[in-house]
């Protein structure tokens, strides 16, 4: 993705994430596994808003939300309340959504959290709240041309956490890093499966120096966020350069065309008439409760990265890349059990594998490789059986075919050449072909690298670098002595 000038850019994010590991909805015992189900099968009087039905809060939803709040460094108030957000739209049959509110005496689930980026910059997360997901709407043809709305209430009432950051991001790249960290935290907590369709959604607001705030809605995955933000910066910059002022508006991210589209502005200012949900009693989150949740928390990505550095002697950078996705970190630890050189293993997984996955737009899961594949790869290199350079050929072949690296190396003859007789004769040849380089190397030890490079090139990197280095230097020393 191209980088662009982001001076004067201010971005804030609003993330909605379903707590997909819950078996029931937030306020009723309807099952939550709505994906792939026929419409309106996971519904009950509560989530379909039948008069007289009463919501009851899911205990596990509170525990899971508390885990998220602690992981994101939030303050958890001792008592929280639910509010009604009133609006007319068929995605909530009750004509209101049960949510939380931070004004009019409302208390959200948590306040004043943050995530720290690798640069040390702190992104403030003003608040987090627990609320119900609305129903899914579909249309006859497009949203504009359809004369009717079709409502499936299976999703209505599913537990959502809403996470709202301050406008602390100064580039789309920072937003992406934040979302990577956030998703890894959610994965490590096992509270949400972000790979499920629609499990996370993101709205972004973005403003640039001199312009008004634009809200971009409907970004349906974390991966799309950076793309949508880059588009918006380009659009706003191009308006400004033409002398047109950026208006405050809400735009919609069109994932297929990869552009943002203006939504018709409502004449009437939004007024949700929030008021306390009298059908739910307040929830107290005692110090004891918070402490118990804390005790039960699994290892978080930041701690895990630190442990990786300590236990496996990885660099900070490698450790950070590995913990960016829980699946990758788990994969690394599994492979490390079969490998004697975790550092070598870490570099294959964090550098070479990532480059391949980025280039081909694939995921580790799709490659159908086992941790043993990578362990064998790392072992081959660290034992000196195959040089790091030659191993790359076997690595790419392994990723493409799923074959074990040793058998690829044997078939392609990638094994390291440590036969000194062969290397000596090769040195003879290269020295006689490059007299000038030999002269240079005699004067400047740094120029030796050119001769070593020639040896590696002639053997496609198969010569043991230590052997080549030693023999070349011996030969140069002899030449110097005989002068």
């Amino acid at each position: 993705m191209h980088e662009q000038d982001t001076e004067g850019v201010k971005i804030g994010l609003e993330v909605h994430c379903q707590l997909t590991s819950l078996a029931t909805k937030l306020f009723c015992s309807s099952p939550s596994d709505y994906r792939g189900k026929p419409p309106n099968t996971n519904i009950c009087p509560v989530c379909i808003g039948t008069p007289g039905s009463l919501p009851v809060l899911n205990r596990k939803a509170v525990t899971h939300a508390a885990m998220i709040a602690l992981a994101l460094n939030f303050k958890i108030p001792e008592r929280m309340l639910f509010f009604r957000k009133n609006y007319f739209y068929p995605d909530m049959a009750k004509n209101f959504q049960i949510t939380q509110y931070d004004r009019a005496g409302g208390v959200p689930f948590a306040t004043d959290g943050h995530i720290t980026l690798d640069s040390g910059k702190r992104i403030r997360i003003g608040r987090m709240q627990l609320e119900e997901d609305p129903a899914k709407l579909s249309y006859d043809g497009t949203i504009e041309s359809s004369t009717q709305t079709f409502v499936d209430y299976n999703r209505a009432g599913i537990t959502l956490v809403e996470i709202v950051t301050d406008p602390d991001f100064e580039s789309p790249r920072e937003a992406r890093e934040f979302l990577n960290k956030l998703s890894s935290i959610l994965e490590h907590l096992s509270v949400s499966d972000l790979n499920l369709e629609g499990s996370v959604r993101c709205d972004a607001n973005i403003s640039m120096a001199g312009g008004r705030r634009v809200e971009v809605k409907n970004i349906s995955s974390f991966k799309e966020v950076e793309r949508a933000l880059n588009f918006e910066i380009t659009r706003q910059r191009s308006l400004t350069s033409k002398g047109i002022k950026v208006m405050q508006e809400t735009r919609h991210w069109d994932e297929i065309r990869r552009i943002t589209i203006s939504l018709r502005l409502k004449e009437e200012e939004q007024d949700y008439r929030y008021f306390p949900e009298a059908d739910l009693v307040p929830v107290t989150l005692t110090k004891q409760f918070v402490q118990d949740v804390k005790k039960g928390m699994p290892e978080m990505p930041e701690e895990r990265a630190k442990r990786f550095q300590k236990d496996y002697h990885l660099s900070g950078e490698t450790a950070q890349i590995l913990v960016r996705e829980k699946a990758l970190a788990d994969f690394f630890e599994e492979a490390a059990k079969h490998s004697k050189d975790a550092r070598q293993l870490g570099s294959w997984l964090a550098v070479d594998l990532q480059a391949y996955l980025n280039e081909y737009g694939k995921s580790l899961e799709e490659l159908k490789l086992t941790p043993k594949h990578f362990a064998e790869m790392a072992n081959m290199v660290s034992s000196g059986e195959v040089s790091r350079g030659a191993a790359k050929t076997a690595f790419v072949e392994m990723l493409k075919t799923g074959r074990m690296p040793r058998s690829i190396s044997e078939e392609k003859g990638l094994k390291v050449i440590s036969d000194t007789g062969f290397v000596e004769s090769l040195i003879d040849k290269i020295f006689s072909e490059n007299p000038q380089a030999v002269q240079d190397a005699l004067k400047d030890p740094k120029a030796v690298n050119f001769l070593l490079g020639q040896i590696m090139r002639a053997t496609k990197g198969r010569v043991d670098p230590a052997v080549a280095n030693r023999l070349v230097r011996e030969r140069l020393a002899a030449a110097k002595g005989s002068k």
Partner: protein
Amino acid sequence: MTKKQRQEQFISEKEVEHLAELAKLELSKKEFTKLRGELNEILGYFRLIDEVDTENVSPTYHVQDIVNVLRDDTPTPQQPDMLLEDAPQKKDRFIKAPKMI
């Protein structure tokens, strides 16, 4: 209610228009005047509460003095088809609603 209270206007025309818009109600002039009068009376009556000294009283958000009514995360069988029967309009298993945008 004193005569003075009855004459006082607690809700402006603009506020009534706003409420009607939020409630998606289209009001005739007659209905509008009638509603405004009624709302005014209700609000006027509620003004009586203002006379109570609440200086040292903490706000109440729930009338019952209970907290933490929670349930376990265990699904129970539902009867979705029975609920669907009550839907005014359907298409297959979808509930039909008017066009919104």
